[in-house]
């Protein structure tokens, strides 16, 4: 086993533990993620496997295929997070609006 493999596998294990600690979501989703992590470890241990998958879909190297997938996933994540952020901003606006209206003051001119 090369040094990079050791580093990558430890990183994946740490990520998996962090994921399980912070994301307490449904069992199905958790199993899916664990599957992704296991695939990651397998790909690190047997790099030729990713090459074979890449060749199958018509890409030269496994690393290239991974890059393409990462770019797509990145943009999807970006859009999903952007929507969430927007939603939170709307809620925040609504809260501030409610508080502001509750605290509204009416001034009157004594001379009138």
């Amino acid at each position, binding site marked *: 086993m090369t040094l990079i493999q050791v580093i990558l596998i430890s990183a994946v294990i740490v990520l998996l533990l962090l994921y399980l600690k912070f994301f307490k979501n449904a069992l199905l989703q958790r199993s899916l993620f664990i599957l992704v992590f296991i695939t990651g470890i397998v790909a690190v241990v047997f790099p030729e496997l990713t090459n074979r998958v890449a060749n199958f879909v018509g890409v030269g190297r496994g690393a290239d295929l991974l890059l393409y997938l990462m770019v797509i996933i990145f943009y999807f994540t970006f*859009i999903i997070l*952007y*929507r969430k952020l927007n939603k939170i*901003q*709307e809620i925040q*606006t609504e809260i*501030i*609006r409610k*508080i*502001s*209206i509750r*605290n*509204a*003051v*009416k*001034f*009157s*001119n004594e001379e*009138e």
Partner: protein
Amino acid sequence: LSNIFIVIPCYNEIRLIRATVLSLLSLQYEIVIVDDGSSENIKDEISDLRIHYIRHFVNLGQGASLQTGTDYALQNGANYVAHFDADGQHRREDLEKMIDLIKEGNIDVVLGSRFLTSESFDQIPKVRKYILQVARIINVCFSGLWLTDAHNGLRVLNKRTATSIRLKENRMAHATEILQQIKTKKLNWREVSVKINYTKYSQEKGQSNWNALNILFDLIIRKFI
């Protein structure tokens, strides 16, 4: 209490807010100042005048301020809600004219326009004219309303319009958002010629021409994402 409410969003326009309010006081309308988290002390500047004062404790943007003021007006029995800028660029005569028109009852929303008469058209700075022409085209793409003016801050809504329009665009793109909702809610609209006072101050403090790109970006994001 009058049932006509003038909503004036205000963000650090301390030098002009008082004059703007004073110019409107004699009309006997209810004036609602929405202080959008200004760092300047707007409240003390105008607390001796007959107004309603609302403050966002953080800055949310002009669209959000207009929505806050409109909500407040409706909760206090408004039949008509006008949007008016704080920096002294709108004229009280125009506001009165628009309110008279909407009171006739056939129209749901009256929009100010700088492009209906040559007199008001000639005062617009040149670069701004071109940007506004492009903005018209963008407006028609996004809202389907073909207006003569694109981003005029002066408008008067009747109760039906004020309750059915809901601004989600916190920043400047709300002007197009209003048009989109006028279209989808099938509201009766009319443009009325207004003049804009392009003072040195309002040009320095107001929106820069580059901000047009920001507005476009907001619109595209909202439309497609």
